[in-house]
């Protein structure tokens, strides 16, 4: 029994859920297929950073588009997603790093982007009083912040469903094929058909793209995070470092999330990860040095979410270069969460209008065409 819908979205991460929701807002009836449950992997267990700061230039327009949606997220989803905007601060630990920051901000300004702002030691201390005194300054993106990733992804899924999306969780999409202008995808005993297929399958998206004749240089990674017990409130913005791998965020309940991109070993087929405690110890050392107030805090839990990382660290986003009706939305390379709301909106525009005002031209899958590899 084949059910015909307007679009099939494979992958219930924040990207698939956001695209499904925006398709509904545009009047389409999509089906969303997720092999586990929405937010099971990276989208539900990432650091929750809502960050325009320190992004690759090709994805900045998408990030800015997304920020506008984040700031009205409750109007869109009827859920505040625990989004808070206290800014994100990139800390330079020495003069050399500050010089790199200065050059970066100048480069962005020349391109017309003004969201990153160079700050001196005084402003850094005002924003992050607990930071070690030796740090000479950094960069701030004041509209940035953080949200609860599982809550956010679930809220997108729930709203999409309320607006008419069909959601299938717990069964993987299989037997993906194209015939007579329609994409067919099996989900257990059911089959869906639609003129549009969106590949938003995260760590599993590379396999789908390859099976459809568009192989890309992608690997599966599992960035690790750890969270501490409650400590007295001492910091508002999210802090990242220029020179070392660290991101740092205190929640309103006092717990502190420590991340930064150290990797666990993913076992993708089993939905498992094995943590690398020696690397997490490096993060702990960095925090120990930078925030003496944290030294007696306890580590309560550590984990890692499975996701896709592209060779060039920017996502694959936009129409297929080979197939009509196929769109890719994956490979967000450890920084896809903030982009989710905007990417869904832009993807819906691409599908419904055939184009978008948001500049995404450098994110296409055609950049991996055999001649450019």
């Amino acid at each position: 029994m084949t059910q015909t819908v307007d679009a099939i979205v494979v992958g219930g991460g924040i990207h698939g859920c956001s695209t499904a929701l925006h398709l509904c807002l545009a009047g389409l009836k999509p089906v969303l297929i997720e092999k586990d449950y929405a937010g099971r992997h990276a989208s539900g267990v990432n650091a929750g950073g809502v960050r325009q700061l320190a992004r690759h230039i090709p994805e900045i327009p998408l990030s800015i588009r997304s920020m506008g949606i984040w700031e009205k997220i409750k109007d869109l989803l009827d859920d505040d997603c625990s989004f808070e905007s206290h800014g994100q601060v990139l800390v330079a630990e020495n003069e050399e790093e500050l010089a790199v920051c200065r050059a970066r901000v100048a480069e962005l300004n020349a391109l017309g982007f003004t969201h990153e702002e160079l700050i001196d030691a005084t402003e850094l201390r005002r924003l992050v009083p607990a930071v070690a005194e030796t740090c000479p300054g950094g960069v701030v993106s004041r509209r940035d912040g953080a949200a609860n990733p599982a809550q956010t992804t679930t809220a997108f899924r729930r709203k999409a469903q309320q607006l008419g999306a069909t959601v299938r969780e717990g069964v993987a999409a299989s037997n993906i094929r194209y015939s007579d202008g329609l994409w067919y995808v099996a989900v257990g005993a059911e089959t869906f058909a639609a003129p549009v297929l969106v590949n938003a399958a995260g760590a599993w998206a590379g396999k789908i793209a390859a099976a459809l004749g568009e192989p890309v240089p992608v690997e599966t990674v599992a960035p690790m995070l750890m969270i501490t017990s409650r400590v007295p409130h001492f910091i508002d913005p999210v802090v990242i470092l220029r020179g070392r791998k660290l991101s740092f965020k205190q929640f309103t309940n006092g717990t502190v999330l420590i991340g930064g991109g150290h990797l666990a070993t993913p076992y993708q087929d089993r939905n498992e990860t094995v943590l690398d405690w020696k690397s997490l110890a490096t993060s702990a050392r960095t925090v120990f040095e930078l925030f003496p107030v944290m030294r007696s805090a306890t580590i309560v839990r550590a984990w890692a979410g499975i996701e896709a990382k592209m060779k060039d660290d920017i996502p694959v986003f936009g129409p297929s270069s080979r197939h009509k009706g196929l769109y890719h939305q994956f490979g967000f390379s450890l920084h896809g969460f903030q982009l989710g709301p905007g990417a869904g909106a832009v993807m819906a525009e691409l599908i419904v209008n055939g184009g978008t005002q948001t500049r995404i031209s450098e994110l296409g899958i055609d950049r991996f065409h055999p001649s450019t590899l």
Partner: protein
Amino acid sequence: MTVAPKREAYDVVVIGAGPAGLAAAATSAEAGLTTLLLDENIGPGGQVFRAISSTPVTERSQLGADYWAGADLVQSLRASSAEVIHRATVWSLDRNLDIAVSIGGASAFVRAKRVILATGALERPFPIPGWTLPGVMTAGAAQTMLKSSALVPDGRTVIAGQGPLLWLLAAQILRLGGRIDRILDTTERGNYLAALPHAFAFLTSPYFTKGLSMMREVKAKVRVVSGVTELAATGDGQLTSVSYVAGGKRETIPADLLLLHQGVVPNVNLAMSADVEHRWDDLQLCWSPVLDASGNSSVPGIAIAGDGAGIGGANAAVVRGRIAARAAVEALAAAAAAKLPAMATLRADLAKAERGRVFLDTLFRPSPQFRIPSGDTIVCRCEEVTAKDVLDSVAIGATGPNQLKAYRRTGMGPCQGRLCGLTVTELMAQARGKTPQEIGYYRLRAPVKPITLAELAAVPKSEADIKAVVRG
């Protein structure tokens, strides 16, 4: 004094020095395997033989002959070549058999060819109204104080619940001169009938005569109310009274101390964090690891023995420890296995030790109203989440314990779900009309016990530090 492990790698690492762990480590070391026994307590014994080598209670009859059987196990362990480290908290174990252990505030990493988990049992949560009040504690906690410090209650004391341990504790408190005002027995009346078909095995098991004489001993001195169907602790910031319903009649009695107990369940946190497969046990109403006849789990190299493998009691734990160790010896040094008792003998010993267990499990299967709370009763103590909060989250789309974390942070506090996990699974299963197996459990994560940031920061550096990856 801090004692770090002498080696970086061992043939066998045993975790937990209760009955199963003591037996496993001694067996493995006797067969010549390099063996490390890591245990969280200050001395050997686990819960059942707690403080076996240090208890101030020297009058043997007070703690009973079963307790002192632990001394022989300790003796044979000490006679073996096993390396034993106490105050050692294992906080991480993974499928590569890499183990992280905190000893005296410093963490060390060791690797094993085989791991035998003997992490024992935990008391089942008993989420009644008021169970978080100061003055309400578990019977197990009271027994810990009794064994390690000879402390017994002297204020107005009520013991409520069911199960063999409840009667044992009551007997021990009375023998040491402690006070018990009333025992509220929550055993469901229908359970007696349900257990009847299994009574023959029980009558011929060692539990029977011991259990009966203990209950007689307690009932001679304390008023026991049976058939209790409702239970609540009340007080303003401190327990002042306990109210209950028995035979349709409500009664409220003043109390300074309420000891709650409704059986024990496997302590699964370390095994689950290593991704060992578990299944819902519908008789024991808990998660148990999926094991083969030698105790091997779904993760190659990890075996589980003792109550952590499914509740079986101390005698069964000792035999399961020997079986798991023998299997390790067979795998690593087959020739040495000839010295050990044959597997068939051990399995026969186990069958004998497990006799009567089904009867006990059926008789003492806790009733739904004491496992699945409602309304304002707290479910998750760490984050103060009520039963109603959980149901509200289910109503807006939380489908299982892991989604519930995002809504309510249940299970994300320092106890890592030990005090709420079973309640959350059963409550969500009931609300969604699913089985506990379908609802599932928290995905548990290391560190299984919290460690300080300073301790983690002091771990030696690795070459991975240098690798550059874009930050998230």
